[in-house]
């Protein structure tokens, strides 16, 4: 069997260790544990078990690496030894190394991470923050571009940011000012360019952009505590009922209803 100008053949030993196989698939050299989003494993060599999280044996690990327990059901722990391939609907995947750092990423883009990192909900709704040292894998619609602030970016192109630049909204006030501007903004009459609103980043750090404006579906980041001063996620992003560990719920979502 030969593959004339066909793809390269990989085996258990020639698969890259913790690196991309091609722009759409990432190979993890697993020896221990990794967190991954449900259903993103496409193949593996070796002995690997997959555990839904939120139960007994993995409690200590989860206490260390997982700080938004109410969305735990979307994550899986892969445990064992072998090579594991990750991919997500043939989107581009990239791995990132954090060294005693932090990175905030849109919830739907994060695919997998090492347990040496801890995952927390971001104060910004719909985003997750990874803190610590280790490797993680994120997907994006098109290759990722790294830029340094100060910069204004299109909301749909934003994947995440690292090392704490400050994210804020920016409006094109010259265009939106006055009665006519209001009419334009609310009705689109008189022509809007669709670019009157951006996210602005200032401060030291890096901003990650994807090269299309097609968002990846968000996954719920969990309810935030109901306290004064805590920003709330929009209801569309969140399940209407908070999910408790061990709860029967969300089966309907998993069956695509």
């Amino acid at each position, binding site marked *: 069997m030969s593959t*004339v100008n066909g793809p390269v053949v*990989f*085996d*258990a030993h020639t698969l890259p260790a913790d690196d991309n196989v091609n722009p759409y698939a990432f190979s993890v050299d697993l020896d221990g544990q990794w967190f991954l989003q449900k*259903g993103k494993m*496409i193949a593996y060599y070796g002995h690997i078990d997959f555990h839904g999280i939120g139960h007994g044996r993995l409690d200590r690990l989860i206490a260390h690496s997982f700080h938004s327990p109410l969305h735990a059901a979307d994550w899986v722990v892969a445990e064992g030894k072998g090579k594991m391939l990750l991919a*997500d*609907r043939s989107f581009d995947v990239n791995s990132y190394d954090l060294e005693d750092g932090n990175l905030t990423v849109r919830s739907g883009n994060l695919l997998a991470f090492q347990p040496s990192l801890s995952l927390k909900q971001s104060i910004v709704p719909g985003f997750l923050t990874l803190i610590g040292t280790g490797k993680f894998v994120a997907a994006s619609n098109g290759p990722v571009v790294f830029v340094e602030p100060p910069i204004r970016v299109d909301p749909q192109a934003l994947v995440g940011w690292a090392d704490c630049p400050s994210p804020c909204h920016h409006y094109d006030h010259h265009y939106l000012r006055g009665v006519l501007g209001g009419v334009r903004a609310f009705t689109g009459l008189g022509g809007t360019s669709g670019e009157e609103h951006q996210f602005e980043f200032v401060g030291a750090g890096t901003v990650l952009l994807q090269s299309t404006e097609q968002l990846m579906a968000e996954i719920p980041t969990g309810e935030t505590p109901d306290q004064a001063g805590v920003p709330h996620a929009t209801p569309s992003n969140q399940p209407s009922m908070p999910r408790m560990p061990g709860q029967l*719920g969300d089966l309907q979502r998993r069956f695509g209803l």
Partner: protein
Amino acid sequence: MAQFRLQGSKVLAVDLTGDAVKAKNGSMVAYEGDMTFKKMTGGGDGLRGMVTRRLTGEQMEVMEVKGHGTCYFADRATEVNLVSLRGETLYVEASNLLAADASLRTGTTFTGLRGASQGNGLFTTTVEGTGQAAIMSDGTAIVLRVTPSTPLQVDPGAYIAHTGKLKQHFQSGVNFRTFIGEGSGEAFQIRFEGEGLVYVQPSERTTFGGDV
């Protein structure tokens, strides 16, 4: 014999000198020279194919392309992968087969539970003989070698094809946690053992198994 080559990664070019290829119905995008296109019944297997493919649900709309020149094939901008066969059998889902040399025999075979878990039915298409075939994948396909010492587990939704002497097992990690809503999302896998190559795509079809 028809010469298969890739024009970019998403278009298959076939050079024909009076011979023929079988290709997915409607997948021709352009041609140079003289070509005739003939719809083939029963996935190219004639009356027997009509009956077995109807019975097995492994429907395949195939046309025969014959002539002199170059014919280009593509389907929904999916990636095309070439496979050269020398007397072996290629097992592939009918929906992933783009084209095959006319001298290759196609048929259907029983796959058991693996097919059911993929939502592709209990049967799969076989291509055997000597010649080239082109298979499609959602994203660049990855070819993984299986040896007796390194068996491979594949998510049913990412599997597209395999060749060689491989035994398939259906492996399930379903336990009581799956039923209390804490499944791992990786409850079903196909385990390949033996000697051969498995083609996977970096994307998962929606399957029942992927959800629990």
